[in-house]
């Protein structure tokens, strides 16, 4: 190294690569209101679409009269199922192998279902005309409770498949039954449960909620009848998959479809699926020859686009007297609503619910999931989690608490004695997963020590004493959670969506002056991909992150990928980025060796350059190499410096974490006050600590909302009770507590940079942690289980039923 070369550390820092808390490059435009969202798209002559929706949860549609609506000035068309049928588009396939009505075909199956699509010159005319479409309904009895879907005399919801006994996921035992999915060893598990020292049994309900992204769903379709090209802008978490699906169902050749996901204002799983609005905007554009925009409002978003959770999980957990868990049994009744529109890999109709053995070494387990149709909106998406992983984590983390009560043990200690040990990784779980890496004991001990767990328990005991002595009306709850996620779907051999393997991709072009552009098959919805993926590349190819542009979301320019959800971007596209970077570096090495007049093997990588081994004063920087690649004729080496990588991960990644929440509960009003929340996350290699912290804060706040009040509730008639933000809880700054974040680092052994993904961890781990705190506060009064959401009146009800108001 000559005197001109700054030290390694200085050069590495200048790259702002892995580990740098580089500021988000996206924020300059977002904080100035300069983002470009779907509703910002304005095309010449653009029309607007709006839906007529069903006020009834279950009814026959006797007739639709569009005459008055068509007479409204500015109204161009009113589409009904009858108009879509000749195109074969009155129904569409769902991601779960079912089909869904685009517009009501003879009947409606949930309140808010799309019945007709009005197209007009502006939003106001469209909304006026929606009021004037006359629909004659004949009300039918409803199924709201999934446990009553199969009783004698239950109304048949899906008459279209009433006689179809074989569903997409095996046999159906009733017209309202969708599938039964099993994992593990039923017989062995039941034998263990029957013969165990101790068995704790409980029904754990994870209620129906909704991802509720800040930006609702929408699309702008523009069919150019001259060149036959369809351009579709939309709120898509998987733009490439949307292009393929759009081609398959519309018959338009795939090269004639360009899908663009512009800036997306949050997705959280809500924007993975395909909605009737997208299809109707496309058809309307084809019919009218003009661009057609559809953007739903908040009520439409909450009541008709994909919900999350709604799992009734009956559990049995068996253990020895000493607390060693010997078996886990779970039967889940999954309320899927009117159509099975879950967004899961094809072979996993209940997602990765079979991660429900959690962080524990449970030798024998069994899981069965029954999917059920009800008169509710379709969905079942992974709301800031990998497919059904939050449900699984909530189930096991509640069951551990229930078992601790049964054993009269401390729940922290019960976890500790059952954790999978560090030396057991890679660990094969009883339900079929291979956990890549983990060090749960270290994380757990660090968490307990940091919060002074022992001291907290003493304080809690003192407060309980004061409560019993009438000195306070507040109880203290300590919520514990140790979660393990499974993210990064996934290996193509077992994960696909509609037959599309779940790989992902990155394409890199290095410009002559040494800057670069990288394009990925994913799409950021707020995660900060443009910031973090440039950091991965910076460390791989020695070009500063600030000199790397990152693009996603345009299927005409970006390489094919399966999109962003299930924390898969970093594990899959992040890996593709690193691998593409390594291809760049391999070629750069040849160029450097040629320029330095040595053999390829005689140069070695040094942060941002190749140096001659043993002669550090002789080097070529990446900037020099980039320029050379465009202006030197190098024998045997093509000009230019580009690479593309399609990455099929060998396994999924298994981030984990230890969360501890301390809460005060007013037993008289049911109000809760979060005293502290400690979140230790282990997401393997940390790319940008600042972004990780932001992701953890955001995910925990969503978890707080879900645990303490957020729900999509239906009354017994099938009416949505929480269809607006008046009742659907989104925390403001005021309700949001302070969080303390921490980490350990256990890299993934199979990921090129060891990263595991983190965006969803806080939602997965946060919900059981908040919920466990509530339960813990009442444990000494005999509470074992009370369903979420723990809003004021339900917490009050716990206290009331335990006699604490007497």
């Amino acid at each position, binding site marked *: 190294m000559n005197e001109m070369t700054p030290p390694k550390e200085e050069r590495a820092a200048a790259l702002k690569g892995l580990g740098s808390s580089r500021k988000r490059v996206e924020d300059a435009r977002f904080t100035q209101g300069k983002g470009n969202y779907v509703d910002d798209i304005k095309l010449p002559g653009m029309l607007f679409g*709006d839906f007529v929706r069903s006020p009834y949860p279950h009814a026959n549609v006797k007739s639709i009269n569009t005459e008055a609506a068509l007479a409204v000035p500015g109204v161009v068309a009113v589409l009904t199922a009858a108009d879509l049928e000749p195109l074969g588009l009155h129904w569409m396939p769902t991601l779960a192998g079912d089909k869904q009505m685009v517009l009501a075909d003879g009947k409606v199956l949930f309140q808010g279902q799309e019945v007709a699509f009005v197209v007009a010159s502006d*939003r*106001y005319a*469209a*909304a*006026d005309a929606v*009021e004037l479409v006359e629909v004659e309904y004949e009300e039918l009895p409803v199924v709201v409770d999934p446990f009553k879907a199969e009783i004698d005399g239950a109304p048949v919801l899906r008459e279209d498949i009433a006689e179809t006994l074989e569903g997409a996921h095996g046999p159906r035992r009733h017209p309202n039954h969708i599938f039964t999915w099993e994992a593990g060893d039923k017989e062995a598990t039941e034998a263990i449960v029957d013969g165990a020292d101790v068995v704790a049994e409980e029904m754990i309900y994870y209620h129906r909620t909704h991802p509720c992204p800040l930006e609702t769903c929408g699309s702008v379709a523009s069919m150019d009848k001259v060149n036959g090209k369809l351009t579709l802008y939309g709120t898509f978490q998987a733009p490439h998959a949307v292009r393929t699906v759009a081609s398959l169902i519309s018959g338009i050749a795939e090269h004639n479809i360009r899908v663009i996901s512009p800036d997306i204002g949050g997705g959280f799983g809500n924007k993975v699926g395909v909605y009737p609005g997208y299809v109707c905007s496309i058809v309307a554009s084809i019919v009218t020859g003009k661009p057609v925009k559809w953007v739903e*409002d*908040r*009520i439409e978003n909450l009541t008709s686009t994909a919900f999350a959770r709604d799992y009734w999980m009956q559990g049995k957990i068996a253990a020895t007297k000493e607390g060693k868990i010997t078996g886990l049994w779970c039967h889940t009744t999954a309320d899927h609503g009117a159509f099975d529109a879950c967004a899961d890999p094809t072979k996993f109709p209940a997602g990765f619910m079979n991660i429900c053995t959690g962080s524990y070494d449970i030798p024998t387990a069994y899981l069965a999931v029954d999917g059920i149709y009800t008169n509710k909106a379709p969905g079942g998406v992974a709301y800031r989690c990998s497919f059904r992983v939050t449900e699984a984590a909530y189930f096991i983390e509640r069951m551990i608490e229930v078992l601790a009560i049964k054993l009269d043990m401390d729940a922290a200690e019960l976890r500790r004695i059952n954790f999978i040990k560090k030396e057991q990784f890679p660990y094969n779980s009883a339900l079929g997963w291979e956990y890549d890496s983990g060090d749960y004991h270290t994380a757990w001990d660090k968490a307990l020590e940091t919060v002074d767990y022992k001291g907290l328990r003493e304080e809690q005991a003192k407060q309980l004493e004061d409560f019993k002595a009438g000195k306070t009306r507040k109880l203290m709850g300590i919520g514990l959670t140790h979660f393990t996620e499974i993210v990064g779907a996934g290996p193509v051999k077992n994960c696909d969506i509609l037959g599309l393997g779940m790989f992902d991709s990155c394409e890199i072009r290095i410009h002559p002056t040494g800057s670069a552009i990288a394009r990925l098959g994913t799409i950021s919805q707020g995660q900060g991909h443009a910031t973090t993926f440039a950091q991965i590349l910076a460390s791989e190819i020695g070009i500063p992150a600030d000199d790397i542009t990152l693009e996603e979301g345009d299927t005409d320019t970006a390489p094919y990928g399966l999109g962003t959800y299930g924390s898969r971007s970093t594990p899959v596209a992040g890996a593709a980025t690193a691998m593409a970077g390594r291809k760049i570096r391999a070629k750069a090495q040849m160029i450097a060796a040629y320029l330095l007049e040595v053999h390829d093997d005689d140069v070695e990588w040094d942060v941002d350059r190749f140096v001659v081994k043993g002669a550090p004063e002789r080097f070529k920087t990446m900037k020099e190499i980039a320029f050379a690649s465009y202006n030197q004729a190098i024998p045997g080496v093509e000009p230019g410096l580009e690479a593309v990588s399609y990455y099929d991960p060998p396994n999924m990644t298994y981030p984990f974490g230890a969360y501890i929440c301390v809460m005060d509960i007013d037993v*008289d*009003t*049911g*109000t809760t006050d979060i005293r502290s929340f400690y979140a230790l996350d282990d997401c393997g290699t940390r790319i940008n600590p600042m972004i990780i912290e932001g992701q953890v804060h955001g995910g925990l706040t969503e978890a707080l909302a879900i645990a303490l*009040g957020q729900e999509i*509730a239906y009354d017994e008639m099938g009416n949505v*009770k*929480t269809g607006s933000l*008046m*009742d659907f*809880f989104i*925390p*403001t700054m*005021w*309700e949001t507590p302070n969080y303390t974040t921490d980490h350990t680092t256990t890299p993934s052994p199979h990921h090129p940079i060891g990263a595991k993904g983190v965006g969803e961890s806080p939602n997965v781990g946060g919900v059981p942690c908040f919920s466990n705190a509530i339960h813990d506060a009442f444990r000494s009064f005999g509470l074992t289980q009370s369903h979420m959401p723990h*809003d*004021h*009146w*339900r917490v*009050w*009800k716990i206290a*009331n039923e335990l006699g604490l*108001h007497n």
Partner: protein
Amino acid sequence: MIPAAFDYHRPASVEDALKIISEHGDDARVIAGGHSLIPMMKLRMTDIGHLIDLQSIDSLKGITVDGATVKIGAMTTQHELIENAALQTAAPIISEAALQIADPQVRYMGTIGGNVANGDPGNDMPGLMQCLDATYTLKGPNGLRDVPAREFYEAAYFTGREDDEILTEIQFSAPGGGYAYEKQKRKIGDYATAAAGVLITKDGDTCASASIALTNLADTPVYCEEAVDALVGSSLDAAAVSAAVSAAVDASDPGEDNRGPVAFKKHAAGIVIRRAIERAIERA
């Protein structure tokens, strides 16, 4: 969330506003801050042909404190109520309550007149005005008339205001003594699960006067006369406070909604009322 078409009027005087009302009758509605009316229009739950925006009528704005007499123009915003120093001295319970209404963005637009005139049982100011024994001034084609807040509310969204009248001003006497406005809500921006306003003055150790009113615990605000009787003349001892709390809870008549069932609401109301009384006593 797209409203039907309407004509927009922005008169500069109350007289002009009244003239527009008389021209269009039922088809016209005045709008103050718009927090209730605009969502109703966007949901198409109300159909209004002529919207009369009062924001350019200067005579409807402002707060005057003249000795013990407080007058507040109907178009005074919640934010202005919170910021006004003279009002803070004369009736600090107003800012205590106003600060519990939604968030700053809402309070910059929301007005006291709109809040009390709409007759929404969820609004905080009607109960507070009953607590303060305020008087509303209404102006109509036949001139001015005054209606006590305690007689103004008939049922949810039904009030003593005639369709051709505009509520122009609110007047009350500075209460003195101790005060408290206590509210339980699910989140910022929510209506009360239970809320109570309490005023108490003492003469030595005896309660000289008291006022208690409830928000969102019935179809209308509830002025709790029997609860007041339980306090006045007492030494504000525990027995008197408990008697007042139970009388006030008895006077409430909440309905079940997403905030919870009646039993919970009554229980929470008891806690909220007790806290308000105890805080008012501390400050008296």
